[in-house]
C-alpha cells in the first residue's frame, strides 16, 4: 500500500498552545477525581513543559513544527490529538465526546488542508454517525492496523466511521478499562513495538489486542501507567527517537526504556497535562508529508 509503511516516519508535527484557560474546562464527569482540582494545575509549568516538548520535536527529532495559537475560548484545544486522526494523506476530523470541543477542529482543519491532506469529516449530517463519538487519544495506529479503544469518550459507531475512512487497514475495537483512554495505557514505542502499562486493565486490553491482530508486536511493559504513553518517531537519519516521561514522573519505568537498543531517549515532562488526564501524545499530531507517491 502506498501508505502502508512501518510506523514512525513523520515529517511534520502540529501542536496547539496552552491557553490561559488551561485546566478551566467545564467539569468532565468522566475524568477521575485526581484531576478535578483546578488549583493543582500550574499554567506556567504546563506551558514550560509544552515548550520542552515542541523543542524536542523540532530540534532533537527534526520535525517541521506547526504551532496553532491557543484559543482561550477552547480550554482543551491543546489536546490536539483528540480532534483528528491522521494516517498517510487522510485526516479524519473526529467527533469528540464533549460537545464544546467539536469546534476545536476548525483551526486544525485549515492547517491540515494547507498541508495537502485529504480531510474527511465524521459528518454530523450523516444520520448514521449521529451518535458516533471518537477521540484521537483512543486510537492507536500501529502502522499496520488501527486499534480503537472503546472508552468513555469513544464509541463503536465512532470506530466504524474510522474503519470506513481508513479502509486499507484492519480496525479492531478493544475495551479500555477504568475510565482511561487507550493511549493512556499504551503507545507505539517503535515500528513493531508497543509500550504497555502493567496495570490490570491494560493487560486486559493487551490480551484483546493480541487476540485481534494478525501481526506480532514486541511489547515493552512499563510498571507505571504514566510511562506507557510515549512518542516514537523515526528521525531523518533513521534514528529512533522516543519521547517519554522523565524519571521524576515515572521512576520505575526508566529502566524499561533503557532496554530499547540504539534509541535516542528524550525524557520530556508532562506532569501538568497529565493532571487533566492527558499525556505526551495528546499534545501533538504527527504527519508524514514526504510520501513517495504524492
Amino acid at each position, binding site marked *: *500500500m*502506498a*501508505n*502502508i509503511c512501518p510506523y514512525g516516519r513523520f515529517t511534520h508535527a502540529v501542536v496547539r498552545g496552552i491557553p490561559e484557560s488551561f485546566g478551566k474546562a467545564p467539569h468532565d464527569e468522566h475524568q477521575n477525581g485526581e484531576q478535578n482540582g483546578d488549583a493543582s494545575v500550574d499554567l506556567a509549568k504546563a506551558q514550560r513543559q509544552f515548550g520542552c516538548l515542541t523543542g524536542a520535536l523540532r530540534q532533537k527529532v527534526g520535525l517541521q513544527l506547526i504551532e496553532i495559537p491557543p484559543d482561550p475560548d477552547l480550554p482543551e484545544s491543546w489536546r490536539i490529538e483528540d480532534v483528528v486522526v491522521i494516517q*498517510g*494523506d*487522510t485526516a479524519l476530523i473526529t467527533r469528540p465526546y464533549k460537545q464544546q470541543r467539536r469546534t476545536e477542529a476548525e483551526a486544525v482543519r485549515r492547517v491540515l488542508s494547507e498541508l495537502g491532506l*485529504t480531510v474527511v469529516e465524521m459528518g454530523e449530517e450523516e444520520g448514521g454517525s449521529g451518535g458516533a463519538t471518537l477521540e484521537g487519544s483512543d486510537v492507536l495506529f500501529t502502522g499496520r*492496523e488501527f486499534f*480503537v479503544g472503546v472508552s468513555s469518550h469513544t464509541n*463503536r459507531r465512532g*470506530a*466504524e466511521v474510522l*474503519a*470506513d*475512512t*481508513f*479502509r*486499507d*487497514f*484492519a*480496525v*479492531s*475495537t478493544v475495551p479500555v478499562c477504568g475510565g482511561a483512554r487507550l493511549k493512556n495505557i499504551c503507545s507505539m514505542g517503535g515500528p513493531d513495538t508497543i509500550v504497555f502499562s502493567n496495570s490490570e486493565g491494560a493487560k486486559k486490553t493487551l490480551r484483546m489486542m493480541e*487476540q*485481534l*491482530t*494478525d501481526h506480532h508486536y514486541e511489547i515493552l511493559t512499563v510498571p507505571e501507567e504514566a510511562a506507557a504513553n510515549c512518542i516514537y518517531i523515526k528521525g531523518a537519519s533513521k534514528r529512533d527517537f522516543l519521547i517519554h516521561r522523565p524519571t521524576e514522573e515515572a521512576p520505575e519505568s526508566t529502566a524499561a526504556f533503557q532496554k530499547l537498543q540504539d534509541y535516542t531517549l528524550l525524557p520530556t515532562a508532562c506532569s501538568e497535562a497529565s493532571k487533566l488526564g492527558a499525556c505526551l501524545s495528546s499534545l501533538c499530531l504527527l504527519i508524514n508529508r514526504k510520501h513517495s*507517491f504524492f
Partner: protein
Amino acid sequence: MTTEAGTETEVKEKAEESAAQPDQIDQSEKAPEETKEVVIAEGDKKEKEGKGISRYLPSWLKKQKSQTQTSPTKDDPTSDEAVGNETEQKEGAPPEVNGHAEEEEEEKEEEKENSEQVNQKEAELKADVKEETETVREEKVEEEKSEDKCAKEETKAVPEGEKTEEQQKELVKETSEAPAEGEKETQTSLFQSPLKLVRKNKMKLVVCHVTLLDGTDYTCEVEKRVKGQYLFFKVCEHLNLMEKDYFGLTYIDNHNNKCWLDPTKEIKRQIRSNNWQFSFNVKFYPPDPSLLTEDLTRYLLCLQLREDVACGKLPCSFVTHALLGSYTLQAELGDYEPDQPKPLDYMSQLTFAPNQNKEMEEKILELHKSHRGMTPAQADAQFLENAKKLSMYGVDLHHAKDSEAVDIMLGVCANGLLVYKDKLRINRFAWPKILKISYKRNNFYIKIRPGEAEQFESTVGFKLQNHRSAKRLWKVCVENHSFFRLNAPEPPNKARFLTLGSKFRYSGRTQAQTRVASSLIDRPAPNFERTSSKRISRSLDGAPVISITDTSAGENGREPHLELNSDSKSSVHGDNIYVRHSNLMLEDHDKTQDEVLKHQASISQLKRSFMEAPPPSPPQPNLWEKRITSSPATIRVQPQPVVTVSQTETSPVEIVTPEPKEPVKTAEVEIEETVVVQEVSKTTKPVIVTVEKVPSEPVVKIEEAMTVTEEEKSCKRESVSSESESEEEAEYHPNVSISISHTQIPEEKEEEIEEQEKQVKNDTPADLPPITQDTPPAEVQEVAEETKDVVESKEEVVVVEEKPAAEPEMEESTDDPMVTPEEAPNGLPLPDDAPDATLEEEPKMNGQPVTVETVETERHPQVICCTEPPVVKTEMVTISDTFAAQKTEIATKEVPIVHTETKTITYEAAQLEGNGDAEPGVLMTAQTITSESLCTTTTTHITKTLKGGLSETRIEKRIVITGDCDIDHDEALAQAIKEAKEQHPDMSVTRVVVHKETELADEED
C-alpha cells in the same frame, strides 16, 4: 496392461456390446451359466480347486498369466498418434500439477471415463471390429495363453491399419482388452447387472461455460458425470496455468449462493441444475504473491483482485484505489504517453473502484506517469505488493449472527477466522487456536484452545442464515485451514461411525505443497496476453517474446505419448520433465533418466489399468475419496475399543523396495504396478507423517448416530459422495500438527507406521469408550482376510447359514502382525442376533485352529482355498443381557450348553502378492451397517485401510440366514454373491467364507 484392473470395465463394455449386438451369445449364455454355476458351487465346495465358486469370482482373482506382451502392442499404435484430444488433456494437465497419488488417480479416473466414452463410440461405430474381437475372445476362452493372445492381436492389428485414426485408437484398446474379456466372458458374466447396461448408454456430453478472470468465456464439452476436477483441469490447461492450486471454479447454486465446485465430486451432483455455468476464481489468496513462481499466476491473481477491488469486495481507500489503478494501467497500457489522450477515454471505460470518479481517474493517471519503464509483470507485482497489505485481502466474508443475535460477519482467511461487526474487527481466531470447527444445522461452532490462564476449551457458536450457509462456511474453513496451515491435506475423516455429517476435506494441495511444486516449474516463462492491452507479457527478466500460438501448441500438446510408451525410450521428450515435476514432486530428484522413465512407464501402467477399471458409476467417486482417506490420522480420533483383527494378510503391493518385487511370482504387470505404488507411497509420505503427529484425541466422537435400516447401499453413497443437504452437521479438527518433514525416507515411514500401530494397540484398551460395551463383539470382529490390490478394492461376502441363532463367527487370525481397531457400530440398533453374537467368545476359541488354517492357506497362491474344518462343537451360551455377556466372569458352565456343528468353507481369490513381508495396512475407517429382513441379517462392514499411501476400501458383508428348515445353502450363496456384485459393481469379490452352524439337536442332552 493390467487385466486385474481392467476387468470391470471390460465386463461392462462387453455388456454394452452385447446389448448392441444381439448376435452375441453371452447374454443368452448367462442364464444357463448362472444355474450351472450354482450347481457347481453346490457340488464342488469341498474341492480344492473350487471350480464352481471360481465362476463367481472375477477372473483377476485367479492367478494371472503374464500379459506383459500385450502392453507393447497396445502402446505402440497409440504413441504413434491417435490419442484423442481428451486423452491428451488428461495426460497433460493433471500430471503437471499433481504431486499426489490422489490426483494421479483422479486423473486416471478421468481417463477411465474417457476410455469409456471411446468404448462407447466404438460400440456404435464399429460393429465389424467387434465381431473380430469377439472371435478373438472366443479363441481366448479356449486357450487363454498370453502368447496366443498376442498373436491374435497382431493379426487383428492388420485390418485395423485401414481404419480411421479414431477407430484405430479404439481398436487398440479393444484388442488389448480382448484377452481379458475372453476370460471374463465366462467367468464374470454372471455379475453383470442390467443396471450397468442402462447406465452406460446414458452418458452425455454437456457444454460448460466458464467465465475466466479476464471476463472471457471458455466453453468446453465435458461428460455429464465428470468430476469438478476434470473441468478445472481443462480450464487450467486452457489458461496454461501450472500453479493452479490457488484457484478454483465457482458456480451459483439454486439459492443464488456462490459455491466452490468440489473437485472430487461430480459436477452434476453439485450444481443441481442444468446451468453449467462456472467461473474461474482465486480460491486461496497467496499471502505473499511474490513467492509465486510464474508471472502468469500473478497476472491471474491481479485480474481477480482488480475485480475484487472494483466491486468493493476488497475495500480500499481512495489513495489505494488510485495506486492500484495506476499499476493496472501500467500493466495493460505500458508507459504513459502524454501525446495520446487515449488513456483518459480508456480509463473511464475501466472500473477501478465502486465509486470511481473523475478525481480518482486523474489521480490514477498522475500515478501512472510515475511508473514509466515498468514492465507489465513488474506492474502486476507492484499491484500485488500493495493489494496484499489490504486488511481484507483474501478474507472471505460470511454473514452470521453471534450468540446474541447481533449481525456480524465471519471472515475466513489464511490466518484464521475473523469476526467483524460492521466494519470493525471484534474478534479473531487464529488457526492454531482453533481445535475444532463444526456445524450443525445453521449453527457454526469453533472450539477454542484454552489460553494460558484458562483451563477449559471454549466453544463459540454463530448462527448462520441456514444450514447451507453454515456448511458453506464450514467447508471454506476446512479448506483454508488445510491449505494454509497444513503441510499436507488431511484425509477425509471417515472415522465416525454412521454420522451423517459431511466427510468433506480439502483434497488439493496445500500451500506448502504447491510452493514446492511451483519451485520445480522450469518451463520457460509462459507467454500470455493481457486482455485489454493485447500486449504480450514479458517476464521480469525480459524473456524473449514467443508467439502465443507457439506456446499453446507446445504446452498443450505435451506428452501424449507418455501415457502409452512404457518401454520405448523415445517417449522421453523434453516436455516430459514437467510431468515428472508434477507427478513425482515429492520424490528425490537425483534420479537418473532411466528411473524417471521407469516411473513414467509405471504411471502410465497404472493409468491404463485405471482406464480399464470399472467405469465411473455412482460408486466411483469413492475411488477418489478412498485414496485421500489415506492417513492413519483418523485412527487416533477413532477410539476403537474392541480390538479386532481384520487386517491380515499380505499386501505385497506395499513393498517399498524394488528388490522384493522380483521374486513375486505374479506377472510382470504386477511388478510394474508395484513400482507405481512405490512412487505413490512416496508422494504421499507427508500424509503418513502427519498422522504420526496427530495429537491423540481419545475422545469418542459419536454424534447423533443415525438409525440405519435397509438401504445400506444408498446410505453409504450418500455419506461418501454426495453433497446431500441432509448433511446437516460435520466437524473438523484442524489442530493437526504441521511439523512435517518432506524428506522422509521410506524406511522411516514404515517404522513410523509400525510405531503408530503399536500405539494404536496400546491405546485401544485405554480408549475404550463405554458405549462400546453394549456392542456385541461379534459385530465388530470381522473376518480376517484378504488380498490387497492396488487398484481395486474388494468386497468380501460372508455368507453364513445358521440354524440356531448362534452367531456365525469367522476366524480370527492370530498371527496378524497388526491389530487394527475398528469402529464399533455405535448407536446402531442392535441386530437381532446381537445377543447371540456375544456368545461367540467361546466358539471363537474353539474355532481358532480352523481359522489359523484358513489364514495360512491364504498365503498360497492357489486360486481357491476350500477348507473343511472338523466339526467343531461350540458352546452356546444363551444370555439375553448383552452387558453381562461381555463380562469374562460368566461361568459358561452354569448356562445351558448347546452344541452346534460348525463348518467353515473359505473361497478366496488368489493372492496377487503372496509374500509375508507385506506391510500391514493401517485402518482408516470402518463402518458397519446392518439391515435385517425376516430370516436374514445382513451386516455390511466397510473398512478403509491405508496401505503404503494407498487406501483401499473393503466391504465385508455378513449375511446371517437363520432358519429352522433346510436352506439351500448354495443357492443362498450364489444369490448373495450376485447381489453383492450388483450392489458394488466397482468392486470385486475376493473372498467368500461360508460358515455353517448346525445345532446338533439334543445330542448332548
